[in-house]
């Protein structure tokens, strides 16, 4: 059971010695200066965890496979969320390369991409190994969607570059995802700051959730948008479903047991969510009239007719970089606050979210 007590103060340091409290995809244990790290489910269907050992020492020192020397000073972030974690700790200055500048929201890093102090090295099959070698990183943070993508990172490992595959995206609990900031904190030698940040976030999140639980009404929420007449709806155990539950919403597919998405016909979605109170994340269009042009049938939804359609594009750059995926990963409490305001309040003072204009 979640504790209902609202903590107003940041919690003190002793927590750094403890492993993760919420995160399920990762486990770590500290003994002295060494941390044994195990990324339990680096991707869907992974057979074995990825094991790492974090040791203090100079980055250039001889190391074995799976060892990471700390603190890392020159970090390559192949996913925008890593930039989000570092920026939350005030350590975005350590980023020396990203996969592509247009994927990053953080203004500071963007500016440094523009003046070439941060390199763009691509990702996946387009990863430019040579460029990466030139910047001499201490650590490369990456996501791997599957075993084959992990294998393509082997080229880096063989070149002697430490690669750490993170799996924060595998977490379906918003707090679990945010807790990965504690791991990032360890990597840059700022564990205390990370732990205290996380504790604040945790407390704030729980406060909002309690606030939402105390509300009388539970509005229903519709998520996503269809392609033609095929609608991929988030499963009942997905990240969004969890977030909505914590926000005090009713999700029509809460009973579904999948973690990913469920493909449904447009008709079926209409049948279940026609009178949903709020529509979130239509994704493809950014104004109601655009949506109508795409498909006039959207007006069959009550939420559309009343204009209660929201998307997290308040902090999104024209080229698509969305802070929701960056700082939003570290601050689920802010996301939750937005949702609570939309669902139970006036829908004002939103941070990531924005009501779609006519």
């Amino acid at each position, binding site marked *: 059971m979640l504790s209902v007590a609202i903590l107003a103060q940041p919690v003190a340091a002793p927590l750094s010695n403890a492993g993760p409290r919420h995160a399920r995809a990762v486990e770590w244990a500290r003994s002295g200066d060494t941390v044994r790290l195990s990324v339990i489910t680096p991707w869907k269907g992974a057979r074995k965890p990825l094991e790492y050992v974090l040791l203090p020492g100079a980055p250039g020192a001889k190391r074995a496979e799976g060892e990471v020397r700390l603190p890392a000073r020159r970090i390559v972030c192949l996913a925008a969320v890593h930039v989000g974690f570092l920026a939350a700790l005030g350590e975005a200055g350590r980023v020396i390369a990203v996969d592509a500048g247009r994927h990053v929201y953080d203004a500071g890093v963007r500016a440094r991409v523009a003046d070439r102090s941060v390199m763009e090295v691509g990702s996946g099959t387009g990863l430019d190994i040579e460029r990466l070698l030139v910047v001499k990183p201490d650590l490369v943070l990456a996501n791997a969607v599957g075993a084959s993508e992990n294998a393509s990172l082997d080229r880096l490992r063989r070149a002697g570059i430490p690669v750490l595959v993170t799996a924060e995206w595998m977490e379906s609990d918003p707090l679990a995802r945010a807790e990965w900031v504690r791991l990032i904190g360890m990597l840059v030698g700022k564990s205390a700051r990370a732990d205290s940040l996380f504790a604040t976030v945790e407390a704030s999140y729980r406060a909002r959730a309690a606030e939402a639980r105390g509300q009388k009404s539970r509005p229903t929420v519709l998520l996503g948008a269809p392609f033609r007449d095929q609608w991929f709806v988030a499963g009942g155990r997905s990240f969004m479903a969890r977030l909505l539950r914590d926000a005090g919403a009713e999700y029509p597919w809460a009973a579904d047991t999948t973690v990913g998405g469920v493909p449904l*016909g*447009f*008709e*079926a979605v*209409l049948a279940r969510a026609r009178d949903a109170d709020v529509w979130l994340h239509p994704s493809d269009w950014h104004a109601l009239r655009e949506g109508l042009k795409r498909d006039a049938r959207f007006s*069959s939804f009550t939420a559309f007719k009343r204009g209660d359609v929201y998307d997290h594009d308040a902090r999104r750059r024209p080229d698509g970089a969305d802070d929701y995926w960056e700082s939003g990963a570290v601050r689920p409490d802010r996301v939750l606050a937005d949702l609570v305001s939309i669902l139970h309040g006036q829908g004002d003072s939103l941070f990531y979210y924005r009501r779609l204009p006519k």
Partner: protein
Amino acid sequence: MTKNPLLFPLLLLAVVSAFFLDVAFGSVSLGAREVWQGLFGGGDPTALSNVILREFRLPRAVAALVAGAGLGVAGFLLQTQFRSPLAGPAELGVSSGAGLGVAALLLAEPLLPPALLDALGPWPLAAASALGAGAAMLLVLAIAARVWDSASLLLAGLMIASACGAAIGLMQYFTDAARLKVYSLWGFGGLGGVTWPQNAVMAACVGVGLVAALALSRPLYATLLGDSAAAALGVRVRAFRVTVLLIASLLAGAITAFCGPIAFVGLAVPHLARALVRRSDPRVLQPACMLVGAALLLLCDAISHAPGPGGEGGALPLNAITSLFGAPAVLYFLLRRSGRSS
């Protein structure tokens, strides 16, 4: 006369039955009475079943009707013009050109200024698809103006299709997973996304194409004898070839723009129609192609939405069903033909 006077009434009946079947199936199961009421009035217009019928089932069935008729005649036009049993809109390069347009839009979208995207109109995917199909058609037409014989023209169409496929593959390599998924969903073909306004545009284009094709029945008939013989009978072969290609491209391009590439219908329907009608006169065969095409596509769409594997989960991909029917049908006719003339 080998013509069966009952044939056309039977074909009409088949179309009507398939239409009802297609309207009856979908991811929400509706009872027979609800379907009947929805179609013929009665009941609250805002009731869910009526909304579903009016906004989802009927437009889908109408699209299948129009697209099936149009593709059937497009395939007939191309098979007659090229005198090849294997010609179809895809072989002309129309489907590949449309795919190239869609891939280009999906790949370039983040880089395009919003003004340009707005210029594509309310249906950017359809516009991109139509532009791509139009470009492929123009290329084939340009070649047709210089190349005299149909065999070379068919080869040119195949080469264009291959080139488009290669370009699309290249684009797919550089696109991210989300857009790839959108492209592959588009590639499956589907009638469920065709809304009423889109249906109106598609029906207008297909209607024009069908009327034009019917009007050209006489010269089409003469084309069966070959370019020289047709010219000797008074057909202006070069102008006629361009006209036929234009009509076939209008039909196939409009349909592909709104429904994505639909496999095999253009290829199989003329063979099926000829087997039923047993005549080669386009004045009889083209209407037969329209009816057979409509019935076939309605049936395939109904099957793709049938209760069972789809369930609440929406439809099976349309192209899978049309290929399942179409490929064996074409094979059968080819084998029968070669067996007969040897």
